[in-house]
């Protein structure tokens, strides 16, 4: 028998996870859309955000500081990574780009393990968001509810940056035709660097705000990366709305399946991905273009 209270609370969990995946996937997809590089270190960015935030928290005991430091640190890592390594890979085959970002991801993970060990680190939620809240029809952890709002706001900010600012205009134009943007007097290399930074920051931000829910560990990024890939395949590569739709679908599938048997969560996720690949090979909101 289905326990309805349980189901609703799992659906809420799915929503939270889905929004989080949407945010991380948006980061991955705008990097791919603009620069044409699939960043396999994206999961590591998520993990780095958690660690940088945790470090900041242990020194300041301020959750806000943790979030700010976690996000900014990962943004800088992204910018440096683009500048030093990725830039020389734009002219190389996709396979080389995949290999190098995969290697960079491993270096990040192992460097963190080296510095902080394999044990997971806990970042507590802010005092006022501790405990659970009675929503009338169910009890739910306060912080998870807050997380829903935090991530929704982050997605909104990302949306505004992409669709309502000059930078966003450049990014959207750059996704279409970077060469023409360059010919109109805008240094696309700088834009690429910034896009990489913003995309990485989306993952890093997700990594730190998720830390009170799931403690951070060096391997935290790996399963996130896999889920992000499924999200992007379902939603369509390079599509921001696709990342959000795909994220929500994936989040719900994982949560609801986990209620019955967590072992099947990935099977169902994979089944959904297969279905999309058969019915709409370019993803639900993707267009035939880059491959």
């Amino acid at each position: 028998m289905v326990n309805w209270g349980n189901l609703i609370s799992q659906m809420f969990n799915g929503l939270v996870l889905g929004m989080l995946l949407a945010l991380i996937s948006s980061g991955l997809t705008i990097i791919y859309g603009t620069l044409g590089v699939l960043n396999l270190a994206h999961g590591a960015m998520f993990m780095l955000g958690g660690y940088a935030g945790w470090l900041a928290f242990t020194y300041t005991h301020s959750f806000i500081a943790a979030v700010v430091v976690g996000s900014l640190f990962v943004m800088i890592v992204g910018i440096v990574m683009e500048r030093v390594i990725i830039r020389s890979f734009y002219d190389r085959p996709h396979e080389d780009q995949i290999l190098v970002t995969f290697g960079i991801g491993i270096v990040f993970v192992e460097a963190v393990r080296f510095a902080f060990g394999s044990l997971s680190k806990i970042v507590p939620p802010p005092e006022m968001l501790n405990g659970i809240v009675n929503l009338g029809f169910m009890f739910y952890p306060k912080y998870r509810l807050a997380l829903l709002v935090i991530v929704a706001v982050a997605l909104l900010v990302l949306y505004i940056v992409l669709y309502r600012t000059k930078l966003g205009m450049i990014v959207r134009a750059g996704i279409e035709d970077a060469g023409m943007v360059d010919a109109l007097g805008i240094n696309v290399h700088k834009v690429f660097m910034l896009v990489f930074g913003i995309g990485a920051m989306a993952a890093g931000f997700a990594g730190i705000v998720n830390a009170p829910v799931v403690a951070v560990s060096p391997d935290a990024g790996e399963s996130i990366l896999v889920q992000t890939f499924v999200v992007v395949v379902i939603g369509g590569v390079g599509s921001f709305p696709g990342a959000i739709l795909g994220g929500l679908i994936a989040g719900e599938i994982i949560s609801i399946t986990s209620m019955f048997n967590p072992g099947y969560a990935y099977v169902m996720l994979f089944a959904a991905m297969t279905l999309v690949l058969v019915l709409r090979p370019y993803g639900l909101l993707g267009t035939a273009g880059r491959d």
Partner: protein
Amino acid sequence: MLTKRPFVIEALTALGLLAAPFLLPYLGFAPATINRILVWGLFGLGFDILFGYTGLLSFGQSAFFGTGGMVAAYLLTIAGFPHVVTAIVIGMIAAAIIGYLVGLIALRRTGIYFAMITVAISEVFYFVEFNPLSDFTGGENGLPGVPPPSFNLGFMKLDFNTDLSMYFFLAFWYFLGVVLALRIVRSPVGLVLSAIRDNPLRAQAVGHDIQRYKLTAFVVAAAYAGFAGGLLGVMQGFMPPDAFMFDTSGQLVMQTAIGGPGTLFGPLVGALIWLYLQDFLQGVLHLGSTWKLALGIVFVVLVVFLKRGVIGGIVDLVQLARGGKKAHEAPESDPNAVAEPETSPSLAAAVVPRSPVTTSDKPVIEARQISKRYGGLLANSNIDFLVKEGELRGVIGPNGAGKSTFFKMLTCEVQPTAGQILFNGRDITGQTVTQACQLGLTKSYQINQLFTRLTVRENVVISALAKLRGPFRMDMLRAVESVPGLSERVDQALALVRLTERADAPVAELAYGEKRRLEIGLALASDPRLLLLDEPLAGMSPSERVETVKLLKSIREGRTMIVIDHDMDAIFELAEKITVLSEGKVLVEGTPEEIKNDPVVQEAYLGGVHE
């Protein structure tokens, strides 16, 4: 590249395998490490066929490695099945079947999508192994107690329970794996796989069903992975669950990239370096778990600086030591050398390879009222077009007239929005470009579409193979050279485009004009009934143009051809009838003389707005 001499590599491999257990310990390799290197090397043989030869970078190989290993280990432990080798073979078959099913899904897309899908696959299998199937796989405990192989020969019993005896057991299978892999990459299938890696679109256009070839490579890689997985359990006496982990796939990818993809031995070399460093950093330098950080850095540095891994780097060094690249620049497009062979008897024979076709009234291709619409843009509208057997037709028109769209419709690269195309009286509307080529309709491209990492000869062979073997055949164990009729056809095509002397040069070393000729040679090698040439003179210097026009005249004998080009002097010289397209329609058709003096054509070219 692999040498042509038979069995040299096989013999060297055998020698190396025999010597390794006695030499490597002096370099600090533990016997158990040497055995693991072999398992990874065998695992990698299949992966290299998939990645190095076919260009498909999969992060999902752990799924097949784990499947093969778990099936074999389950049979040998829980099920109590006694025959070790049979169990491993059954595991391999299971992995191959899983590979086939997964390949059907993953190969729906290419490039980064393929990589992402395979990452997801490996994770799915990991979770399935861990949870729903834990009764069979032991979940996170794995399956302990896998027996070592032992054969009762009647008069004596062969047990493989020491490191060294196990080494020879593994080395035997590795050797068999190498022999088989060498056969595969030297077979027609292997060559087509390389063609897919270099230029999938052209591989398709010369008539190969690349989807089925890719699936073949995927299954072969899965089978190798499955077998290696079985060996892993037998070697350790324990089938670990982490065989299924994404890390396993990642390690395989990294080892292959470090060793050098596309060499078959790259994964072995990579495993050697990887496992040695692991032992060294952990055991000698006591770096604990930091070894992976160090290896990660080594890997990134290698990918950044050595594009083709250690083996590739060594090959480059050797070439450098031999005094740089051999003088391969073409004798700077010497028009004399080109004109001359026309008198040579072999070429004279080659010029008339087909049954003598004379211009007849039989239509070869006929387009009836074809149109093509892209969104709001009508690129072609209601074109009627007919070319008869033996004719050489020119197609010209100002920029934006819709010439290339028209050509693409004729070769079935794009489907017309409306209308019908008949080839030899048969309706080919809606066919794929592969099917069209198999029917005898081929195009040479405006921008060279060559298999850039192969030699001139291999390029032509790939095209000829499609004609001789059909769109798909699984002759994985036959040598390319033994395909009947192949060498004659290839020699003919090479002679026709005057590249006989350059047959063994890699495409990357050709001069531009030579590449253009090879482009035409690729189309000729499939012996088309109708040859379409899309701007054969594009990008050529004036002297190269003269040469190429001569070449086109020489191959014209006995063929039906349609030529698009901007060089109108050339078209007027070549074609006996010209179709002028303008604004997506047929403007006029006529002899060169008629076209030259037609005011309507002048108008189309020089503009309509008079003041």
